[in-house]
């Protein structure tokens, strides 16, 4: 499945916590687990993140991402919007939805400003542009799905969830579908581990051990869900969702979710 150097670098950029899309403000309910003393050590942390991977990131976000990637590859706006809507419907806690749509919008906005030259003939850029009907950026100019989707998000016509945006922008930069899923899941895990380190008292070695131990889970979960149909999208994490919802009402909060 590997990939040219540009796509590899794009995947690194998209999975780096340096990407300014607010990832550091999300704990996906982890803050609530810590506040309720449910995470006492590295094993418990690993178990929790593995459960998130198996029950939320895999069956929900990875499915959304993979199908958004597919929609982008086939230039199918309708399918893309359906994926976005479906992910919105299956993401229960309000804070999870908000974190995800804010990050999605910010990623779109950012790339629109930083990567706009991409469409002007950079071969690593857009894989399948289409021709705008009317409206768009001037008649007859190629408008890629990424821009169309960004416009729809900006106009509030679609929620613009992060994994969906991620799928589109990764595909447009030549990152394969499975690699995009892996990059996203890896970023999810490092984001959560960073949150855990700031919330609890975990050593850097303990945190890296959890990361290393989770590698097979990341891989299995992505491989298992990369080919799922959109309608398979569902989350099975009642406790995480309850934590996410309790977090909304928590008095002490450092994180947005």
């Amino acid at each position: 499945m590997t990939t040219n150097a540009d796509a590899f670098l794009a995947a690194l950029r998209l999975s780096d916590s340096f990407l300014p899309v607010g990832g550091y403000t999300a704990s996906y309910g982890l803050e609530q687990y810590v506040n309720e003393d449910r995470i006492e050590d590295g094993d418990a942390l690993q178990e929790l993140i593995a459960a998130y991977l198996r029950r939320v990131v895999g069956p929900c976000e990875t499915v959304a991402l993979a199908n958004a990637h597919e929609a982008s590859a086939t230039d199918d706006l309708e399918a893309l919007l359906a994926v976005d809507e479906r992910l919105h419907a299956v993401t229960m806690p309000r804070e999870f939805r908000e974190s995800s749509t804010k990050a999605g919008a910010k990623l779109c906005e950012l790339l629109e400003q930083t990567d706009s030259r991409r469409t002007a003939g950079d071969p690593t850029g857009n894989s399948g542009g289409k021709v705008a009907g009317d409206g768009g950026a001037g008649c007859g100019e190629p408008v890629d799905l990424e821009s169309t989707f960004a416009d729809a998000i900006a106009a509030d016509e679609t929620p613009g969830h992060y994994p969906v945006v991620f799928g589109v922008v990764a595909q447009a930069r030549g990152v394969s579908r499975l690699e995009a899923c892996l990059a996203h899941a890896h970023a999810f895990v490092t984001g959560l581990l960073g949150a855990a380190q700031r919330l609890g008292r975990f050593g850097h070695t303990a945190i890296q051990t959890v990361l290393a131990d989770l590698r097979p889970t990341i891989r299995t979960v992505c491989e298992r869900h990369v080919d799922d149909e959109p309608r398979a999208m569902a989350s099975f994490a009642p406790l995480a969702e309850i934590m996410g919802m309790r977090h909304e009402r928590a008095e002490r909060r450092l994180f947005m979710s």
Partner: protein
Amino acid sequence: MGYRDVAKVGLGGPVGSGKTAMVKCLVPRLVEKGYEVGVIANDIMTQEDADVFRESFADLLPEDLVEGVETGACPHTGIREDPSMNLAAIDEFTERHPELDVVLVESGGDNLAATFNPELADYFLFVISVAEGEDIPRKRGPGVTQADLLVVNKTDLAPHVDADLDVIEADASEVRGEDPFVFTNCKNGDGVDETLDHIEREVLFA
């Protein structure tokens, strides 16, 4: 309408230096001058801080122009490396209130190195207090040297903490060069109008 269409004033500085107190001094004066104002609290327990602002500005600002932004225990990241969640909150302000003139963004209390991302703040106040030690300006932290306006607050406490205002003034002049600084006392409002003059001149009339 979006965050680019509104003036944004950042207030940074160490914990307890008087950022919240300064926001509380500035908002009524700005409102009196006819500006439509929004306020964002990035402080550590943000919803709590936002609630304090909502309460104290109950007669001045609509509730939906006061917002708390949680920065995941990374206050400096929220105002410097990745201000996206602050900008998202400002976008929501401008969507609901297209006439908005200015947003005050209070950063979570941080260290002397925390500066505002220029895309988040058109103008950036760094608030220190005399009670944190008279040597702070001399240490030349990036906040002290790079801020558009250095605010030295709590002048009323100087005699109680053995801080010499003349020393602070001399050091501030030296490290700031041509750039301005003001002495303030947020308890009685000394220096607040001067602070406001700077803000008006540099961002609101600009």
